[in-house]
């Protein structure tokens, strides 16, 4: 056991080096942006990086956002592993979030079971939302990237329609949103009064489950094989289509669960346009984590801290929250590109 840990430690450095390099470069780029646009760059940048660690409340906020990002990052990861690009996590999060609130309120069950039912309903909703793109990809060969994106434009519109016309809207709220869940139907909080909640443990448990499936089961082995060498997998007698479908549905369900936990654990209701792009951030998290279970957790914590930091930076200085989205795009390039090759090409050497 110890041996394995030690070996893991060595390879962990090799595995995480590209991520650390990409993070360093992109933080440098964002520092340059901050210097360019800000009157008080040092305050702004310090708040961006450290805002999440100022007090227990902001630390808790960081954990609650990281919870959602672990799940949406895991959703993207599960897809990528088998060669499926679920670019529509955002939409699955919306349908999962609304479905969870509806089921929690309607289920005639004792509270713990009602919460469980709500979370499962969110997963089912997310899986249903990826059904059409998944079937089109697997049976008709239509690239899932455009269809999942299209579905993610439809989801916020559909959920807002249901909210306004399905008798779900809280008449006393200014913003379109549902009534709040009664306290018994909420996931318990940790680090109250921040919005961190037991969803974090659910997310961590699912990462462990993902690791077990990936490393210790035939399904996991098949997923990796289908993702890396589809034709070889075919020759090995693996049913590529089935493995791909399973990955799609798992991906949709995980994103749906992320939405459900926003509703049941964080906001305690469904709010119109509640997501600051959790679904897209999930793609970045999956890439920074290099599709590894531990990597996804670390990347989600990092990005959770940056989301909280960006919010504080916006209030504390003249640098807007949007810096976070710039960074997100830059990180995608740096994580998927081959920096070493560029270095060799630009500066010569080996």
């Amino acid at each position, binding site marked *: 056991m110890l041996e394995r840990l030690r070996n893991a430690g060595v390879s962990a450095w090799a595995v995480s080096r*590209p991520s650390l390099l990409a993070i360093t470069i992109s933080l440098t780029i964002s520092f340059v*942006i901050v210097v360019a*646009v800000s009157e008080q760059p040092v305050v702004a940048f310090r708040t961006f990086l450290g805002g999440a660690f100022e007090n227990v409340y902001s630390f808790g906020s960081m954990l609650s956002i990281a919870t959602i990002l672990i799940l949406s990052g895991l959703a993207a990861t599960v897809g*990528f592993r088998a*060669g*499926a*690009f679920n*670019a529509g996590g955002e939409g699955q999060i919306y349908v999962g979030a609304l479905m969870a609130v509806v089921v929690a309120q309607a289920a005639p069950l004792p509270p713990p079971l009602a919460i469980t039912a709500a979370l499962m309903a969110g997963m089912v909703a997310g899986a249903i939302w990826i059904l*059409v*793109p998944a079937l*089109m*990809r*697997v*049976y*008709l*060969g*239509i*690239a899932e*990237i*455009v269809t999942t*994106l*299209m*579905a993610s*434009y*439809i989801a916020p*519109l*559909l959920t*807002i*329609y249901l909210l306004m016309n399905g008798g779900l809207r809280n008449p006393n709220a200014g913003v379109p949103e549902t009534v709040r869940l009664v306290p018994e139907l909420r996931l318990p909080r940790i680090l109250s009064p921040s919005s961190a909640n037991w969803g974090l443990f659910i997310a961590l448990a699912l990462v462990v489950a993902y690791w077990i499936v990936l490393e210790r089961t035939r399904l996991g082995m098949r997923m990796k094989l*289908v*993702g*890396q060498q*589809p034709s070889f997998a075919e020759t090995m007698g693996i049913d*590529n289509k089935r493995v791909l479908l399973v990955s799609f549905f798992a991906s949709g369900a995980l994103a749906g669960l992320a939405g459900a936990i926003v509703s049941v654990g964080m906001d305690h209701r469904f709010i119109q346009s509640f997501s600051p792009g959790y679904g*897209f951030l999930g*793609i*970045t998290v*999956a*890439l920074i984590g290099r*599709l590894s279970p531990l990597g996804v957790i670390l990347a989600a914590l990092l990005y959770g801290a940056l989301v909280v930091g960006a919010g504080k930076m916006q209030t504390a200085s*003249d640098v*807007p*929250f*949007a*810096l*976070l*989205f*710039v960074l*997100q*795009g*830059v*990180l*995608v*390039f740096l994580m*998927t*590109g*081959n*920096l070493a090759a*560029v270095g060799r*090409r630009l500066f010569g050497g080996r």
Partner: protein
Amino acid sequence: MFGLDTFIATAVSASAPIVATAVGGAFAERARCTNIGMEGMMLMGAFTALSVSVISGSAWLGLLAGIAVGALGGVFLSVAVHLLTCDIIIAGIGFNMMVSGVTLLLIDVFHGESGTWAPTRPPLLPRIDLGAYADTPLIGLFLHGQSVLVLVILAVVVLAWIVESRSRFGRHIRAVGDNLEAVVAAGLNPTVLRTTTLAISGATAGLGGSFLAISALGVFAADMSGGLGFIALAAVIFAGASVVRSALVAVLFGLSVAFATQFQSSGLPVQFVLMTPYVATILGLLLVGVRRRSSGNPPIINPTSPIQH
């Protein structure tokens, strides 16, 4: 009540940005450069067109800047793909995220606005005034009162068709897509050719984005391209990367918007009107898949593998 003229006007203005973007997208797709980044290139085109229009006081300069910046975006994506060796699909998604962030950042930094920037009395491109011919069947219905950009976009379609079918460059692009070895053997540089097609795609996406920003309202809103770049890509895929067919399919998607808008007056909820182009796009791609399957071509399963090293 809705009349035929309003219907056609809606269809034309809904189609124009998708048509423009799809035309360049067809070039890139033909050279096997699937340009997911068109969405972001539209967005940066829209932002730049409005900014330069306001600063210079000339909407025409704004248009040129919007097109130029879109082309630069195409070159940027090409650098990410060829120098940084990113997967083109994932780099495109990253590009869109980045542009979305940069435009938000800039309207906040320069205009103190979060989400929407509405300058006071921005210069707009002129509208087509056919005067006495406004009631001419067909031409009057289609063009009178529309932005001159509609004419520009029509001209671009014709020009692109000529380049595609009659020029050496058009043949080279087809060769890059079909037979890479032959291109290299002929002494051509495939990277340069691909970069050019991505720049062309970026330029027409910038044109489409400019249409959104400086043809009617003169407003920039966060993510105002609203998936039109992806819809244009779907049109290109549907049309098998032919310029004219891509433009026609783009018009079909625009028509779906006009139809939905028409149904709004008879009680279709606004959310369903707004989701129409996305639903139409999925249905369109479904048709592509069914057609491909019934013609005996097996579905291609190309896995997307983002981490390659």
